[in-house]
């Protein structure tokens, strides 16, 4: 019996507001414990929540970017449970009436190609705090800096079938939220978190199997690994003739396996009910329109434009639009250039290669887009050749000097003078009669020997486009 995995993902994305969702405390990460707190977010008696409308605007943006239908009236509910990181004893969340529903995200995987994943809903909620366990004195401490930080939870339909698709969905969503500038996407700091619901069913069967929920998936790689592991685990259990237990399982990235965290019988009854401290959230057409006006070009739109406007391949356009800063860098670079394909290659191999090696992101690049563009212009003008340009690029990285300065200081201008090069080629043939004879006798591989000699004599500055026909004709 062939089993088909059914996967749904729940993503918690922290909204990039300056202040928390129901009070004026800062959301800045990395402050000392409980520095970002006030009576409201620490659940003091008598205080009341006041909704941060910037958070709503960000949620609307996310809804528009995922094609969701935005509710004219949504509501905040209370999710009741006791835990020391939850100061009020309830979390304010949108349960019964979320701000947005019925969206979708288009993904592409190597194996399954293009596919649309449905988005069930997007709702707003507040984050909880953090417990810090002190092993020495066997006690726990509470840090409420994160309490009340605004989140959106984006729930997918159970449309995902493979770990690869789950990875593609998450990467796409991650890119999208960063593009529209509502989430910084920092997974280590917990700004983008994912839970996965997984079940298996015999292929062709409509009814879902019993699912497990995976938590603690804090990187794209872990999501895919954990899902693969869980699919295999469930398949093994089913093939043994046993049944899956509905439970929450925790991914252990060190042991590379999932382990049961709590069963269904330990599941909380959250006793949701409408929060009487907050009136219904009304989002009218004017609000939606004003947010729509702020929407930047989305990744898919940008990719299509890159293909049409710059005649780039699908692959190149996909890479270059995979993050907004990179796309902006690229567009800045190609201003005034004519060979866009060359610029794309340089960006993807030389520039990104350097950044990857240094562990930097594009915004931290030691080479600015303007300087990078100047370098490419020098190649286009044939002022330097490609090989020299690599050399200049390396010096740009280490010295931060402009490419012109580097070229001038090191006398790297390309030698393109035809008569000067002809003289040199004649001289080299004359000085190497054996090699010349061998070439003429059919050993055409020796072409590179002569090219090497020319480059050696010009310290790599000769224009190969001139030298190549010269060598061939003279020999």
């Amino acid at each position, binding site marked *: 019996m062939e089993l088909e995995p059914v996967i749904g993902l729940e993503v918690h994305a922290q909204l990039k507001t300056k202040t928390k969702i129901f009070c004026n405390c800062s959301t800045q990460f990395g402050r000392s414990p409980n520095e970002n707190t006030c*009576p409201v977010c*620490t*659940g*003091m*008696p*008598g*205080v*009341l*929540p*006041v*909704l941060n409308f910037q958070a709503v605007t960000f949620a609307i943006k996310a809804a528009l970017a995922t094609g969701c239908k935005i509710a004219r009236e949504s509501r905040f509910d*209370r999710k*009741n449970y*006791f835990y*020391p990181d939850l*100061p*009020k*004893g*309830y979390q304010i969340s949108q349960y019964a009436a979320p701000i947005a529903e019925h969206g979708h995200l288009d993904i592409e995987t190597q194996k399954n190609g293009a596919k649309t994943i449905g988005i069930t809903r997007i709702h707003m909620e507040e984050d909880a705090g953090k417990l810090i366990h002190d092993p020495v004195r066997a006690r726990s401490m*509470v840090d409420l800096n994160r309490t009340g930080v605004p989140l959106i939870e984006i729930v997918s339909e159970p449309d995902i079938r493979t770990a690869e698709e789950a990875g593609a969905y998450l990467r796409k969503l991650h890119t999208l939220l960063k593009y529209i500038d509502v989430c910084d996407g920092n997974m280590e700091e917990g700004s983008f978190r994912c839970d996965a619901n997984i079940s298996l069913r015999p292929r062709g069967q409509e009814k879902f199997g019993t699912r497990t929920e995976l938590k603690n998936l804090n990187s794209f790689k872990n999501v895919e690994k954990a899902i693969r592991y869980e699919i295999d685990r469930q398949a093994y259990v089913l093939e043994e003739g046993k049944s899956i237990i509905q439970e929450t399982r925790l991914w252990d990235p060190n042991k590379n396996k999932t382990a049961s965290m709590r069963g269904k019988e330990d599941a909380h*009854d959250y*006793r*949701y*009910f409408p929060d*009487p*401290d*907050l*009136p219904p959230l009304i989002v009218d057409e004017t609000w939606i329109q004003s947010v729509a006006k702020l929407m930047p070009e989305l990744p898919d739109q940008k990719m299509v434009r890159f293909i049409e406007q710059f005649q780039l391949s699908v692959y190149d356009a996909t890479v270059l639009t995979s993050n907004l800063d990179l796309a902006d860098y690229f567009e800045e670079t190609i201003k005034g250039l004519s060979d866009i394909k060359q610029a794309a290659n340089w960006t993807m191999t030389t520039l990104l290669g350097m950044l990857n090696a240094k562990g930097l992101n594009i915004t931290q690049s030691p080479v600015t887009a303007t300087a990078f563009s100047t370098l490419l212009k020098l190649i286009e003008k044939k002022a330097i050749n490609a090989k020299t340009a690599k050399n200049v690029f390396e010096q740009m990285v280490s010295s931060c000097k402009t490419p012109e300065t580097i070229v001038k200081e090191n006398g790297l201008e390309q030698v393109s003078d035809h008569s000067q090069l002809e003289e040199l080629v004649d001289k080299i043939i004359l000085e190497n009669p054996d090699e010349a004879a061998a070439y003429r006798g059919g050993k055409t591989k020796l072409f590179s020997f002569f090219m090497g000699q020319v480059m050696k004599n010009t310290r790599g500055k000769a224009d190969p486009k001139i030298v190549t026909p010269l060598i061939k004709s003279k020999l």
Partner: protein
Amino acid sequence: MDLHTLTMAQAQDLLSRGEICSVELTQALLDRIDLYDDRIGAFITVDKSCALAQAKAADERIAKGDNAPFTGIPIALKDLLCTKGIKTTCGSKILGDFVPQYDATVVAKLKKDNAVVLGKTNLDEFGMGSSTENSAFKITRNPWSEDHVPGGSSGGSAAAVAAQFCCGALGTDTGGSIRQPASHCGVVGLKPTYGRVSRFGLVSYASSLDQIGPITRDVRDAAMMMNLICSHDPKDSTSAGVQVPDFTKALKENQSLEGMKAGIPREYLEVEGIDPGVRSIFEQARKVLENLGVEIVEISLPHTQYAVAAYYILAPCEASSNLARFDGVRYGARDSDSQDLLEMYKKTRSQGFGPEVQRRIIIGTYALSAGYYDAYYGRASQVRTLITKDFSKAFDQCDFILSPVAPTPAFKIGENTKDPLTMYLSDIFTLSANMAGIPGLCVPAGFSPKGLPVGIQMMAKRFDEMSLLRAGFGFERALDLKTSFPVL
């Protein structure tokens, strides 16, 4: 001059004319509290030095001539309102020695005027009760008859005003907690429209029903207090962004109430167990209003019979969630012997909350549980909608609704404590106003044969406190109760 007999309006007049100073007025009231509050038990906390310092500051402001309406006027606050730097107990052990770092918005408004906060008054724990017997600290006695309760939950505030310990007080009302003790203590109590007064700093019992309001010696003082406390507050999302009128404009001497219509709900008079004394005072009040030119019409509030049941689902549901924050983790009392988290929660909350609060938390938790939500919270919410509709229909026929406040005068201390259901039923005339979010005013209307005060209630449509104050003021002047204060 007996300074303690002054109403807020009289005190304001004398203070602004420099005939008395706030320090002497405050001292006179503090002396009276010293003398009698051991017997009455109106206050949980009296901060003498703080009160006198505030009085001194008020006098300095008056001397400069830039006094505000409440400058120098001594006020008492129900101990459910947060006061910066002054212990706020909510009548509960669970708050321990909790001292807020912030003032409730209404308290901040009083302080901005340089009013004097005499102290914090006793209450049923977290506002849950109708007799002030559910306080963790003390019982409060009715100043008219010390073996009777003052009503509740704002019993301390009502008793303090009746005993002339303060010029006026603030209470809170979730199902009658201002109006019922005002009736039992022979003072004026007004529950404003939901959203009129900011709830910021009011420790929530049932957020969708709670409202802060004045408890005063007369209707004029209630209007004066309303002018101070009503406003939109950005810190309370449920506070209304409506225009606040000058409420004292509703008060005109010798004005006729000609043209006003008062509705008497048929269903209210059919309620079982209305004390004959209450009934006859109500009839008398009706005649007084008729003599003032008010036309009396019979109206119907057909869903009245479901109000108590629905209320005692909704209020506990909200309470069970609102009181979850009292968990021993960040502030207040904590059981320190517990070995693990769950035990700490259980012991802290079992020891910290009194039996009535625990009862309501359990009812609310149960009613919100999976599988019960629709049957309880859902249906109770539907009843609430129906009751609200009843009222809006009724106000097509009349300007205000006239009713008793409570079925009986104050009962004896301990008389009802073993029977919560009877206690709950005594809220029948008041809690509908909270369900519908409409304002309700209690004005003293007479005395029972045993000499206990009895008030009448007037309710108007949302944001129409002006009609209540106008009718209440006219009624109060026409009735002219001579013996309006008890002899201690």
